[in-house]
């Protein structure tokens, strides 16, 4: 079984975003970029399935201009066998991403598509579900445990009330939540080795997908900032403030 793992290049999760002066977008110039943390977890899970003998090959896919090679190399250094880059100038909308991934998944005959549940930049939480819908496949979103048994994937999902385990007929799409695993650290020799792994390049046109757009970002603003309050000296003072000043108890 081949596992396809989409990875997205995003702002590093430790970096605080800045907003452009003209409020048109966030400012990503000179910003540290990384693999989206959820995608990294997905890569790790795919590698573990391969190491357990369940999967034969792990293929990373990344959509973006040449610069996304940095994230492709990171995925290859973790242990993905090869990669595909779909060349686009700008990030397409989630529906287009899902259409592109669907074509690649078909071409590769992937048995499992293991991906992050959301990207920490746009926070959309859409692509996995859209991909599953387009392909007519089952979906196991927000996964915290993934097991392959026979022709099914058993996925434990983090849902509002607790946990839910579903059995999905393979091929399936699974999206990773934070607790699925802790990604491995890569060592220097892995990075050297990654540079020799194959990266195929393709385009939306090659894949027969039209890059359309129906959503437009008009502006971006900083959130209303909270003023730091005061430090109280004692529990008594706190209770007094809550009761008589804030009036919330």
């Amino acid at each position, binding site marked *: 079984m081949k596992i396809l793992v989409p990875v997205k290049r995003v*702002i590093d*999760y430790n970096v605080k*975003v800045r907003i452009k002066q003209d409020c048109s977008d966030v400012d990503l110039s000179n910003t540290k970029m990384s693999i989206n943390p959820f995608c990294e977890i997905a890569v790790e899970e795919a590698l573990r399935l391969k190491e357990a003998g369940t999967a034969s090959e792990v293929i990373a896919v990344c959509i973006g201009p040449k610069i996304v090679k940095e994230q492709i190399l990171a995925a290859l250094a973790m242990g993905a066998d090869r990669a595909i880059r779909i060349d686009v100038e700008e990030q397409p909308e*989630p*529906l287009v991403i*899902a259409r592109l991934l669907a074509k690649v998944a078909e071409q590769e005959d992937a048995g499992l598509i293991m991906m992050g*549940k959301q990207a920490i930049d746009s*926070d959309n*939480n*859409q*692509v*996995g*579900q*859209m991909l*599953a*819908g*387009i392909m*007519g*496949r*089952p*979906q196991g*979103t*927000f996964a*915290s445990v993934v097991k392959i048994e026979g022709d099914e994937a058993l996925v434990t999902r*983090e*849902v*509002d*009330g*607790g*946990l*839910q*385990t*579903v*059995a999905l007929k393979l091929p399936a799409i699974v999206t990773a*939540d*934070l*607790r699925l695993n802790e990604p491995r650290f890569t060592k220097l020799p892995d990075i050297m080795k990654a540079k020799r792994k194959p990266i195929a390049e393709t385009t939306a046109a090659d894949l027969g997908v039209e890059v359309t757009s*129906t*959503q*437009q*970002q*008009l*502006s*971006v603003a*900083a*959130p209303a900032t*909270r003023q*730091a*309050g*005061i*430090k*109280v000296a*004692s*529990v008594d003072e706190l*209770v007094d403030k*809550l*009761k008589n000043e*804030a009036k*919330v*108890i």
Partner: protein
Amino acid sequence: MKTLVIASHNNSTLSPVTLAAVSAALKIGASFDIFVAGKGCATVAEEAAKIDGVSAVLVADHDALEYQAAENLAATLQANAEGYSHIVAPATSVMKDALPRLAALLGVGQISDITGVNGEAEFVRPIYAGNAIATVTSSDAVKVITVRTSAFDAAPTGAGTGAITAVDNAVDCGLSRVVSEEIAQSERPELASASIVVSGGRGVGSEENFALIEKLADRLNAALGASRAAVDAGFIGNDHQVGQTGKIVAPDLYVAVGISGAIQHLAGMQGSKVIVAINKDPDAPIYEVADYGLVGDLHDLVPELEAKLASVL
């Protein structure tokens, strides 16, 4: 223009977060219907019919919709989407699972987790874990939208007289089945809609110590929250996690105990009206958003607070 609001429920009662989605629908401005998909969910439909201003309540009652599995829910909604300009649902885990799939089936985009409505096609939503707020427009013929329920007041209910209609085109895709569920049963208020939330972090130290947080929560009749670190450490279940990837809450009072205040945690609670932080580190970032900070060891301060509240409440 007409909006379809998807009800959130557990087959027996309508979840109040549905009313926040109705508020968003009212701001969009069109008349609205409500869709109830479930199994044995007649009482939910009756409740939904009482929401003020609802035109019709469509009910798909089918075995395949017992858990509102995304594959079946999305296909069923697609079969009933004709004639709607907007499809709106509260951003619960069920809807976050199903709505993007529905959007793809309809060949349109989705606008996730909106916190504001500026018109029929213009919406406000947080990005970058709430560190930026985007205003977006959509030109899709059908606008599929999930709503951050903490950002909208509950729409009025009780005076509605919606007509309940059963639909018989529920779809069973046969792609997946639910094997088991571990749904926490709790007497405490629900995290997403509670007016007070008491949360514990890694600083609480152990599962046993979390009893201190629970006692304080019970004293305040509060919901119980946690940081990711507390959940990862096994102090408490994942359904209590507050933050970018957990639940988003905006109660009147949020009490953060032994939580440092990482941006991913703040993303889930900085809309709270009043924030209290208890932390032994006077420089912890949580104090930058807290209205009232109490510096010290939580093991002493939390029991003292609980006892003193007992005498004033």
